[in-house]
C-alpha cells in the first residue's frame, strides 16, 4: 500500500516497571490506519525491541488495549484519524496495571481479582444431566446477557479512578463478571458471590464515576452491573435476597 504524503508524530512510552519515558517516532500516515497498525509499523520498521501485546486484530481477544492520548482504547479498532491531535498521537501502556515492558502490562492483578470476586462458574449439574433450559426473556437472563460480552481487555479497569485510589478494589470487569453469575440460574453459589463482592474492595467501593461504561469498547455498562450488585448485596444483608 502506498504511503500517504503526511507523516504522524508518534510518542510511544518506553520503559519497564522501574520507570521510563516517551520516545518519538515518525510514522507514514495511511488510509484506515489503526493505532495498532502504527505500533506494529514502528516495531517492524524502526525498533524491533518495542514490546506490546496483540492477537486477533479484530476486536475479539481484548489483548491490544493501550492508553491513546490519555484515554484507554482497543488499539486494533481505533482509527488514527479519530484520535489524532494535529499530527500527534501519544501511546502509553494501560493505567492501573504494572508495566512489564513498553506497552505490555502485567494482567495478573486484573485476573486475580476476577477469582477474588468469585467470577468463576459454579456448576450444579454434570455432563450426564439434561441441559438446563433457560428462557432468553427471563428477567435475570436479560440482566446477564446485557453484561456477558466482556472481552477482558481491562480498559474499564484502566479508566477507573477508584482502582487507581484503592489497589484492593476489585474493579469494574471482575464485578461485571460476578453480576452475570449472580443472574445465572445455573450457577450454584449465588450467596458466595454476593459475599465475595461485599468484602472490603468490593462493589460498595464504586463511586459511580461511570468511566467504565464510557470507555468499554463493547459498549457494556459495568457501572450498571455494579449498581445491581449493590442492590442485591443490600437485599441479602437485610435477609431479603
Amino acid at each position, binding site marked *: 500500500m502506498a504511503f500517504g504524503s503526511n507523516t504522524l508524530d508518534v510518542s510511544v512510552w518506553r520503559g519497564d516497571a522501574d520507570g521510563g519515558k516517551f520516545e518519538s517516532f515518525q510514522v507514514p500516515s495511511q488510509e484506515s490506519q489503526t493505532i495498532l497498525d502504527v505500533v506494529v509499523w514502528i516495531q517492524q520498521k524502526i525498533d524491533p525491541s518495542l514490546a506490546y501485546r496483540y492477537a486477533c486484530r479484530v476486536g475479539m481477544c481484548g489483548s491490544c488495549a493501550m492508553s491513546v*492520548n*490519555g*484515554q*484507554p482504547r482497543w488499539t486494533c479498532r481505533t482509527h488514527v484519524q479519530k484520535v489524532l491531535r494535529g499530527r500527534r498521537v501519544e501511546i502509553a501502556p494501560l*493505567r492501573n496495571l504494572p508495566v512489564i515492558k513498553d506497552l505490555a502490562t502485567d494482567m495478573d492483578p486484573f485476573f486475580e481479582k476476577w477469582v477474588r470476586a468469585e467470577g468463576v462458574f459454579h456448576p450444579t449439574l454434570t455432563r450426564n444431566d439434561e441441559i438446563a433450559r433457560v428462557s432468553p426473556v427471563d428477567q435475570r437472563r436479560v440482566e446477564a446477557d446485557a453484561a456477558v460480552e466482556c472481552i477482558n481487555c481491562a480498559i474499564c479497569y484502566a*479508566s477507573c*479512578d477508584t482502582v487507581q485510589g484503592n489497589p484492593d478494589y476489585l474493579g469494574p470487569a471482575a464485578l461485571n463478571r460476578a453480576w452475570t453469575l449472580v443472574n445465572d440460574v445455573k450457577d450454584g453459589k449465588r450467596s458466595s458471590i454476593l459475599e465475595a463482592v461485599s468484602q472490603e474492595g468490593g462493589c460498595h467501593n464504586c*463511586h*459511580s*464515576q*461511570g*468511566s467504565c*461504561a*464510557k*470507555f468499554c469498547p463493547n459498549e457494556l*455498562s459495568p*457501572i*450498571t452491573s455494579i*449498581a*445491581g450488585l*449493590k*442492590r442485591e448485596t*443490600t437485599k441479602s444483608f437485610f435477609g431479603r435476597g
Partner: protein
Amino acid sequence: MMRPHRSHPLWLAYILHRLSGLALAIFLPAHFYVLSLALTAPNDLDGFLHWADKPLVKVAEFGLVFLLAVHFFGGLRLMAFELLAWSKDQKTLAAASVAFSFLIAASFLLRAI
C-alpha cells in the same frame, strides 16, 4: 488540567458532588457558630445579620444554596441509581439534577434581591 479519561458528564457529576460536600462540611461549623450567637451574643448576631444584607453576601448565599442543592440532588441521583431499578439514562439525570439545582439557587437569588 483535567485528565482526558475524566472528561465525561458522569465524572463531572461525581466531582461536583464531592466538592460540594466538602465545601458544605467546611461551611457548617461557621453556620452553627452564627446560630449559637442567638443565645450567647444577640447583639453580635444582629450586627452580623445587618452585614449579611450586603449584595456581595447575597451572591455568596446563592453559591451556598447552589452547593446545597447540587449535593442534595446529586445524592438523590446516586441513591436512585444504586437502590432503585437502574436507568441507562444517567447522563440525562445528572444534567437534570444540575439544572434543577440551578433553578432552586436562581429562585433563591431572585427572592433575595
